């Protein structure tokens, strides 16, 4: 097992976080305040790039394309779910740094999987 799928997962999480920051409602929840139009565009572009990068990593992990795309869809689900949980906690008064918890967890899992 390589680190590739985990990296893909972390990138898709990063992509979703950036996309969330581009949305006024979620930006307010995560960061506070509203993003300006330029900031929104930048977050959107960054998010899209990160998702694209995670797709490329998925294609590199799984040898054939239909499998890789389905797997990527699965990773997206996982990443988006993690972000939704972070936002839920955040709304209940959780700390801003919670955003880093899912990628840290994924990194840990990936490390364990690579070692064993």
């Amino acid at each position, binding site marked *: 097992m390589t680190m590739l799928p985990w990296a893909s997962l972390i990138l898709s999480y990063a992509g979703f976080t950036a996309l*969330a920051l581009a949305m006024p*409602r979620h930006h307010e929840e995560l960061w506070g305040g509203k993003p300006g139009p330029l900031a929104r565009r930048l977050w959107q572009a960054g998010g899209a790039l990160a998702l694209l990068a995670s797709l490329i990593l998925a294609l590199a992990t799984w040898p054939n394309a239909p*499998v890789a795309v*389905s797997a990527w*869809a*699965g990773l997206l*689900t996982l990443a988006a*779910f993690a972000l*939704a*949980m972070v936002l839920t906690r955040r709304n209940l008064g959780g700390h801003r740094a919670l955003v880093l918890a899912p990628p840290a967890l994924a990194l840990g899992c990936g490390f364990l999987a690579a070692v064993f």
Partner: protein
Amino acid sequence: MKNGFRQSMAWLHTWTGLLLGWLLFAIFLTGTLAYFRSEITYWMKPELHVSQPAGDPVPLALSRLAQLAPAAPSWSITLPDQRNPSLSVSWSNPGEAPGRRGGPSAILDQTSGQILHPRQTAGGDFLYRFHFELYGLPRALARWIVGIATMAMFVAIISGVITHKKIFKEFFTFRPGKGQRSWLDMHNMTAVLALPYHIMITFSGLVLFVSTLMPLVIERGPQRPPQPAAEVAEAPPPRPLPQLTAIAPLMAQAETAWGGMPVGRIQIEKLDTDTPEILLVPQRQSVVTVQSGSGANGSERMRFDALTGRQIEATGVPEASVVAQVNMALGALHRARFSDTGLRWLFFAAGLAGTLMIGTGMVLWVSKRAMKHAKSGVQPFGLRLVDRLNVGGIAGLCLASAGYFWANRLIPAAAENRAGLEIAAFLLIWAAAAIHPFLRGTEKSWSEQLALTAVLALLLPVLNMATGPSGLPQALMAGNMVLASVDLMALICGAVAAIAAWKARPGQQKKPKANRRPPAAKPAPAAAVAQTGVPQTGVPQTGVAGE
């Protein structure tokens, strides 16, 4: 006009959902469990768990075959793989064509070579079959029913996305503790976040049913050339077994040719002639489009002279038209045929999300209407009926599935018609769970059934340890992930059921009406449901109104 369109979509979403919701819930739940079909079947045969992997199994299998079937004209060895760790051998009787199904066979202990005798079980195959053929109905009728349900699912997905357009603005939103609003968030979240999966699984499921629903439009997959009828030889006198060449280098050669895909089956044919041959078959297909049948092996073949090791022929992937290829790719995707372990778990998680989506949708149907009727204080009959049926259809099926695993271990291994008894246990538990809410009221039966499901699922690893030779810790230590995955799956499902049971515990709805004030615990979604069933609970919580 736009509003009118959205409203009619909402109507469509609501009523297709209600009409086929329980069936779809059953299809999704059993289908999700069926991702672990061969793992479950293996788990359900604890007699096989004593066998530990021990080096190269081929020489052991060959020497045992020489003892068990010295006169057989052909032998076949199925090697342990990622999803089925048993070593099994089979052979044909003199005068029979080689490779016939249903011939004599045996599963061997990989250390001692002793024959293992697994119990008879319906295994994971029951759950797998149930998810597209149900049970006890004529096969064609059942496939029609499930096919129509699949189409309804497709309709519900599309109309749901249109109805809940707002979900894309509140993409990551889940607001716990807000009554019906939380249910709706949960329903939306499990739908949207796994939307690609839902579309893929529903669409590919529909394609798998094409031959049932539209018998004239199927294009057949590639057909293997018909095997020449085997010549029936008269039983030969026992003859000394030929000295076979070493198989390991042949396997290495095949695996290189197949791009690293390991050999899954070894057949030794024409043992009764002077020119015996070895046929190697890969474990799985290398490309997703090869073949959509539910058999396990790929379609490449490599044949060798068994005495000299010279390669006689190698066949590759059969040609197929584009339409057939797309069909087969969808079929393989639906069955997760290609999946390595990690991918299988991903699909399992997405399937679980789909199951939750359907379950929460059914609960929403009731809670919305209950709120509407709360002011008049009279709950119409249809509403009360759906409310009660929801318990059996959702919590009851979870309970029956957990009970099925217990039945497998508690019914004596030597019982007559064992597989039938296991299925009977499943159906009886489900029937009892369906009646339960009519006697006990919905509120109590929700929480009791969910709690019992949680207990059964969470204790499944304990049951496995008590009634089998290898528990979860041993399986993990030995790296037997096939065995461990069923216990792990039970723990995950048990945890989900425990959370649901906690949220649905009685008394939840008696909290003061809290609107937008975050209470400590999430007022149970199921509690909102329960209100409709229990007249004395009076005024329901005022959640934030629906979409």
